[in-house]
């Protein structure tokens, strides 16, 4: 339930900010992210050291460095406008959130805009420490015992930041700190959509935590909808 609310909040942020920027009647870019080749097999996670978490997963969950769907769909790819759209003058008012539940980060990839509020929630009955391994932003590391209220943080420079919990070394997530709100994360079918784009020339970047990034230039005139696709080369290791 919490997760669904989180997603809903994320969507609301996206909708609110894009409406503010272009009005509802812009063009849009949508498409699909796929892979070719053999992606690395994800390993089941042994949570026996944290029984409270292990119980929440009757079937052990696997690592999430590459998450795929039917039809070679590649999930968890951040698709965003890296050039052509103005930087957000002020960050969206709505916060984004990351929840630690069952010793897992939900969602696995959290996109946000520079200086946007990030809410960190611990829904587990055990402690976590949330430790973004930032290189461009400031690295910090905070303990969050069970029952403590969510805390807020923000990042003031664009960066893709791996996140880990040192107590539970299998926990791994990604923060994507972006310059504007025109972003999407590919879903289980690999699909993404960037709506409400005013006419213009854009550079679209697709970023994946294991496979790196790709870019494409797209020109939008009027209210047209352009369809593009990204294909990543999968590595079996």
């Amino acid at each position, binding site marked *: 339930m919490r997760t669904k609310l989180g997603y809903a909040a994320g969507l609301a942020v996206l909708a609110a900010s894009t409406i503010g920027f272009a009005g509802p009647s812009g063009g849009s870019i949508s498409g699909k992210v796929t892979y070719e080749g053999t992606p690395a097999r994800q390993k089941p996670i042994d949570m026996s050291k944290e029984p409270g978490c292990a119980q929440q997963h009757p079937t052990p969950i696997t690592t999430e460095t590459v998450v795929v769907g039917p039809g070679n769909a590649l999930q968890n790819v951040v698709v965003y406008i890296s050039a052509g759209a103005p930087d957000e003058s002020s960050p969206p008012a709505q916060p984004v959130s990351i929840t630690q539940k069952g010793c897992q980060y939900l969602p696995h990839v959290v996109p946000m805009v520079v200086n946007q509020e990030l809410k960190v929630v611990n829904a587990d009955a055990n402690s976590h420490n949330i430790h973004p391994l930032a290189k461009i932003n400031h690295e910090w590391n905070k303990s969050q015992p069970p029952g403590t209220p969510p805390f807020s943080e923000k990042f003031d420079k664009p960066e893709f930041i791996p996140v880990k919990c040192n*107590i539970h070394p299998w926990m791994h997530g990604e923060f994507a700190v972006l310059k504007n709100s025109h972003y999407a994360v590919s879903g289980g079918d690999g699909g993404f959509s960037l709506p409400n784009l005013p006419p213009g020339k854009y550079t679209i970047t697709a970023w994946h935590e294991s496979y790196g990034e790709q870019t494409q230039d797209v020109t939008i005139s009027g209210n047209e909808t352009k369809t593009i696709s990204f294909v990543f080369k999968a590595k079996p290791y």
Partner: protein
Amino acid sequence: MRTNKLTKLLIVVTALLAAPVLASAQQMESHIGKVTGHSESGKQLFYRYCWGCHGFRGDGNGENWLPTGSYPYMPYLNIQPRNFVAGTFKCRSTPTGSLPTEQDLYDSLVRGLNNSNMPSWITLTAQNRADLIAFIKTFSARWKNDKPGDPINVPPEPKLTGESIKHGQELYQKLECWKCHGQEGFGDGPSASTLTDSNDQPIRPYNFAVGSRFKCGATNQDLYKIFMTGLDGTPMPSFADVIKPEDAWDLVHFLRTLQVTHKSAELTLWGSTKEGAAQIASRKVSGTPTGSGIKQ
């Protein structure tokens, strides 16, 4: 012809000598009490005393250190020297994610870092140390673009009581310090063997049972600061948002009782209670300060 060769040689030598200058084109100052440090003086000292470990570029890749997995893997140092280019520091009086104060860096130089290969530089003059701090600041743009954080407030230490120690023990459980530091403070908790620092190098949690000094000092105030600020770049997080100041002192008092080889007021008081005496007697000291008795 001969002059030509000499000129070439001179150019090469000059270029080599100039490289450190280029790396630190920015001049920096430090202010430690009444002493003002200058980076150009600090540079001479750095390339005499520090670069063997901290590296020519200050990135912690000096010849005395090799990362795990490199060939041949025979490091002289088992904790990587600080990378001054990253601008992330363990021993701070400032909140997690912020730069330390110049005084914090100066104190680290005076004290050395316990359980690492960083010695105390008490043999240098105060002016020398201030100069080194100024030079270290030239390695990272963070010192130009950011200000050090505001030091956290350490309230006066309340009177030591048995209840305080007992409550500290409850906090040690509740905050799950034992997950890494172990139930008895030996640094052998269930997560201890998997810990890595932010550079993916194995790192060990502090073993309270051996020794009296901590990584960032030896006093109760230092201990208070360590868990409230966290040791940035390591798995040790900040607890500033989750521990109230009065509770923090209780935790300090309890942590002292884990140092069974170090005579402290806390250990004496705890040992005089029935519960405490039983607990202390049951602890068999194991491992070394660097936790080398701990399997990893």
